[in-house]
């Protein structure tokens, strides 16, 4: 879609184009946001620009668990009060946030950054699975919770990782199936998710 230069010149069109690239932002919303930026105070525009750049400069992925972090280790991995013998495997950093909101789980995490979906071109090598094996092998992990989403690709990922970890003798568990099948962990409410983690069973 081409943006009309008559709508305010080069910079406006460029801004609309940039907003339009963001997920979930359609052409009308992009236009509204761009015009909002024109009307807003300079300091607010600067603050937004600074916040965006700051995220790109300062936010990294935790070297242990690949969660979002501000330094080498994320807040969870850095916390000595966490139970370092338990590892909860999830698909995305947002799943970590969802589980943390339950205030039920006190162990560590491992973020795969995706799920096995060969038809969409995602294989095991495209995920953070090899580092996971290294962690379980070396760090005295006693239990691994396979908390991928309860849909076909999530289950395929769990089964695959289960096969890799089984020979290591670690206890393998999975959240209770109180969650609706086909849903995303990230959107489940705190009570459901909390109970699901408490009611985990041998896998």
């Amino acid at each position: 879609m081409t943006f009309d230069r008559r709508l305010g010149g080069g910079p406006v069109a460029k801004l609309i184009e940039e907003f339009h690239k963001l997920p979930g932002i359609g052409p009308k919303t992009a236009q509204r946001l761009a015009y909002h930026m024109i009307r807003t105070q300079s300091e607010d525009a600067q603050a937004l620009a600074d916040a965006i750049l700051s995220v790109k400069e300062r936010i990294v992925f935790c070297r242990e668990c690949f969660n979002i972090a501000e330094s080498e280790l994320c807040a969870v991995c850095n916390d000595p009060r966490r139970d370092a013998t338990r590892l909860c495997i999830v698909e995305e950093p947002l799943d970590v946030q969802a589980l943390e909101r339950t205030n039920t789980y006190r162990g560590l995490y491992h973020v795969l950054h995706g799920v096995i979906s060969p038809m969409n071109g995602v294989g095991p090598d495209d995920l953070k699975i090899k580092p996971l094996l290294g962690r379980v092998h070396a760090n005295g992990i006693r239990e691994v919770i396979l908390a991928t989403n309860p849909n076909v690709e999530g289950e395929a990922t769990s089964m695959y990782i289960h096969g890799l970890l089984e020979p290591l003798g670690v206890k393998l568990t999975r959240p209770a199936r109180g969650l609706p099948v086909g849903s995303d962990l990230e959107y489940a409410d705190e009570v459901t998710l909390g109970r699901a983690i408490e009611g985990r069973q041998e896998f």
Partner: protein
Amino acid sequence: MSRPRVYKTQAIVIRQMPLGEADRIVTFLTPAAGKVRAVARGVRRPKSKLAGHLELLTRVRVSIAEGRTLDHLSEAVALDSHRPIREDLERLAAAMYLAELADVFCVEESPANAAFNLLTQSLERLETAGTAEPLLRHFELRLLSDSGFQPELFSCVGCREELLPGDHLLSCVDGGVFCPNCRAGATESLLPLSLGAMKVLRFLQRESVDKAMLLNVPSATWNDVERVLRTYVRHVAERELRTADFMALVSSGRP
């Protein structure tokens, strides 16, 4: 403004991709409408009632409303979720392979009755199959045939003479087997095709999946058949099949 046409059909979910915040684009294989892609609104939300019915490999009954750019799903009821496949990694990897083949070979707006029945039957058999090999080879060959890419296994593609028993050479580009006299005329490198493999391919071309699964054939012959079909499929598809890599990874043991 005219209302969109709504139609009901049986379908098998062969692919899914997330769209936006809460939607998915679901690719279905249907008998009459062939391959259909439709937006399923809100299925990634926890309260979604449709989500469980639209899992990969599920056979469903759906209502689809035609849209200007994309079709929309209005209803879906699962008929068969193939749970035994979903709970076994090797069966699941094989089923994903079948689904990717269907996605590659079937086309939008072109009826796919044969392919739909083939996929339905194959998924049902896969739930309990001891080995997947005969089923997969049968599926590959039948899908090639249904899509117009049947390799010629009875007559030489050069001189049209009937092929005599023996080891032969198959050409992907020429779509069949060359007799010893015509080999020099082949346009590119040829695949060795043993007599045993040729017999199996001829059998699979005409028999049902159930008969295919009863075949008693040495594993060396299955390896030949697999190699030939893998190359042929790769040539026709013009791309790698990622599900084939995953299937190999899963059945090889562990990396």
